């Protein structure tokens, strides 16, 4: 942790505390719940965090809290790969990994976790852990898909971004295989969702990323032939619940949110509705008829749920069985592939290759065209006042943000395909190209 930074971000610490205290409570399915343990967790954990230089984990798709913004991170304004005699700049390391990956990396306790798929038809699926500081490959574990590995050549079996509760890693694949390891690579459990749902799958490729909350791993498997969302016990892999879902292709990811009554829920979007689900039971709390995006996912930030649905619709979540209230909407932000970001500079979405920023009333603050970008799949991230947007062709646009404008200050070429959303950990950006893992940090 040589480049450790003092993490004074209270929101980040609280998120981590919330996650870990829930793990303490739920770790044994309530069988041996000990309030003293919970007390110790509540009291000691923040003390430990206050007294240590820590990096905030990036525990899943769209980062901590599900909004890929780290206001305190300081990343380089530019980077470059080596070319001839010219050395690379601000690239700490790059390690090639076997196979292909379009998932994003996550970072947990100093370990970058990444997935890939390889071999015939991408049937072999891999989870690797890499030391965030040195780039050393710590372990790699392989399994063979039990479901359909097929996908469009652009994608890969390794499309969903893994997630973690801080202790365990949950890696999901397009083939509907869900595998759990501890941070040292020891298998905790492996579940083939194909065993019970042999027809589930989409030969364009599935990509919905799992979430873990309150001791439950939630996965959306939504396609034409057999569509469902399931909750599995994080510790044991046992199926806790399963709900049927609309039989149509859906690549969006489940999101966690906290209602005004303090209760945590999981939100599922589809081409026909938005649903709030109680994580432990799978009970449907409410359902709103809404044609949501089936690619870009919702974002929960500052107590509001931002839903891509023919533009952007913003909801508050009263709690219980009360339906969410739409507080405003705009057609100006209309994410098509990448998800949006909620930042102190405004709400930022990527409408194809144009960044659009609106205020909380939906009024446009600025536009920024990302020239010759091609297709974007990765959701941009914000570190400090810099936004990093990776196009599929590996070109990264570094955009300087202010309250009323944005300026593209650098266009950096990685020279490799990037489809997974990057992760921020400390003062470094971790990027998964289809063939390698990169750490971008100031030299």
């Amino acid at each position, binding site marked *: 942790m040589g480049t450790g930074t003092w993490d004074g971000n209270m929101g980040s610490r609280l998120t981590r505390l919330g996650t870990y205290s829930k793990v303490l409570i739920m770790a044994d399915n309530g069988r041996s719940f000990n309030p003293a343990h919970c007390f110790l967790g509540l009291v000691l954990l923040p003390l430990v965090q206050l007294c240590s230089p820590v990096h905030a984990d990036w525990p899943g798709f769209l980062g901590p809290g599900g909004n890929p913004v780290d206001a305190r991170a300081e990343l380089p304004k530019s980077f470059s790969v080596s070319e001839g005699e010219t050395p690379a700049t601000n690239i700490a390391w790059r390690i090639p990994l076997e196979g292909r990956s379009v998932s994003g990396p996550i970072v947990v306790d100093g370990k970058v976790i990444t997935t890939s798929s390889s*071999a*015939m*038809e991408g*049937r*072999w699926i891999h989870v690797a852990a890499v030391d965030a500081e040195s780039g050393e490959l710590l*372990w*790699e*574990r*392989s*399994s*063979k898909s*039990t479901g359909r590995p*097929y*996908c*469009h050549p652009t994608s890969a079996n390794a499309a969903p971004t893994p997630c973690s509760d801080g202790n365990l890693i949950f890696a999901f694949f397009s083939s509907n*295989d869900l*595998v759990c390891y501890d941070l040292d*690579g*020891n*298998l*905790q*459990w*492996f*579940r*083939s969702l194909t*065993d019970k749902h042999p*027809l589930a799958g*989409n*030969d*364009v*490729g599935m990509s919905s990323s799992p979430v873990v909350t309150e001791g439950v791993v939630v996965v959306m498997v939504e*396609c*034409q*032939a057999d569509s469902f969302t399931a909750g599995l016990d994080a510790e*044991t*892999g*046992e199926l806790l619940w399963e709900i049927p879902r609309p039989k149509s*292709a859906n690549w969006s990811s489940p999101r966690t949110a906290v209602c005004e009554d303090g209760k945590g829920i999981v939100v599922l979007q589809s081409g026909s509705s938005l649903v709030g689900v109680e994580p432990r039971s799978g009970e449907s709390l409410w359902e709103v008829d809404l044609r949501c995006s089936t690619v870009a996912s919702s974002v929960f930030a500052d107590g509001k749920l931002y839903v891509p649905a023919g533009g952007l619709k913003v909801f508050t979540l009263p709690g219980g069985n009360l339906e969410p209230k739409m507080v405003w909407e705009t057609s100006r932000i209309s994410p098509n592939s990448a998800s949006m970001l909620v930042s102190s500079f405004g709400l930022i979405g990527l409408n194809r290759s144009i960044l659009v920023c609106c205020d909380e009333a939906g009024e446009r603050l600025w536009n920024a065209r990302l020239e010759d970008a091609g297709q974007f799949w990765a959701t941009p991230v914000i570190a400090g006042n810099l936004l990093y947007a990776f196009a599929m062709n590996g070109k990264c646009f570094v955009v300087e943000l202010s309250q009323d404008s944005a300026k593209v200050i650098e266009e950096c070429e990685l020279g490799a395909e990037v489809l997974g959303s990057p992760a921020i950990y400390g003062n470094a950006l971790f990027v998964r190209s289809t063939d390698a893992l990169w750490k971008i940090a100031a030299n």
Partner: protein
Amino acid sequence: MRARFQAGLIAGIFLTGNALVGPGTAIADTLDALAEATAESRQASQIVRQLQSDPQTRLLDVLTAMQGKTATAKNWYLSVAQTVADRDPQQARAELGQFLTRLSEDPDARYWALRYITQGDVGLREQYLEAMLADPSPDIRYEAVALGLRRAGENTELPAQAKQQRYQELLAAARLPEQIREVAKRLKDECEYEVDLLQFMGFVSRWHTVGPFDNQNQSAFDVAYAPEKDYAAGKLDLDGSYSGKTDGLKWQLAETQADDGAVDLNPVYDNEKGAIAYLSTNFNSPAELEGEVRIGTPNACKVWVNGELLISREVYHSGSQIDQYVAPVKLRAGANSILLKLCQNEQTESWAQDWSFQLRFTDSDGVAVQPAD
């Protein structure tokens, strides 16, 4: 007796958290118990933790135990193997080198062994693969063919006759359609040698079809129209007449000469939308055999062979490729009746207009079954 022992073992592990493991047969029994337990991940987790932490767990015992297990169970074993191998990678590589020579071992275990031995050493991987073109593991064979293609493509000094011979060896070894097609393309482009892919891959090219029947709003996937009922009753009459979207529908020929075996129904039915067509033929098998029926189609489909429904996929325009859906089949020597139901919906996007399929039979190794006639 053994099953009772395993049940007791699982219960013991579950209740006490301790596996009754020891050297020799006890480990073997624990490994067997793991396969029994993988349906219930809590029990399997307990066993795996024991196996991973027990110094008596031997790598080759774990890999050998994979033989005959389900795809799901094998992944539990693989994870134990990986943890055990990482205790002493050098020793593990030596043991795995021996294991790899045992061709009758589980093909997935052997492929994993190859990956572990050669991890991070491309040259070593290639040395192994050079001698593995006929390996029984489909994954190893696939990599060996890919290496052969790469080497032959790079070798500009290989005489034409030798190159053609090399590509023909690769063609015989290849099983995956995309590799077969790539080798055939190389033979054509570099050796001016034409492979009849329609015949080589065993696509069924001659069909009779009747339709269109109504499928508006994708409503009739499970509606049995008259041809389906007649087939089920064993009285399909190719001279018969049916009422569908119009009256007086007759069976007509639908044939293909395409090298990917695709039978295109759009010209037959004038790009009809919201429609169902039935296709029928007989496949003349050279012998009684257990193999696979394989279909690729962007349309919802049902496939019956000898009266048995083998494939049923209600999926429209969500990707398509040769051998997309595969099911085991028992072929009789001689005629085998096939009925295919192919459903088109009403999507308007340009990428959602195809109404086509290709179908073939293979043995369980993926080699095309050639008809007797």
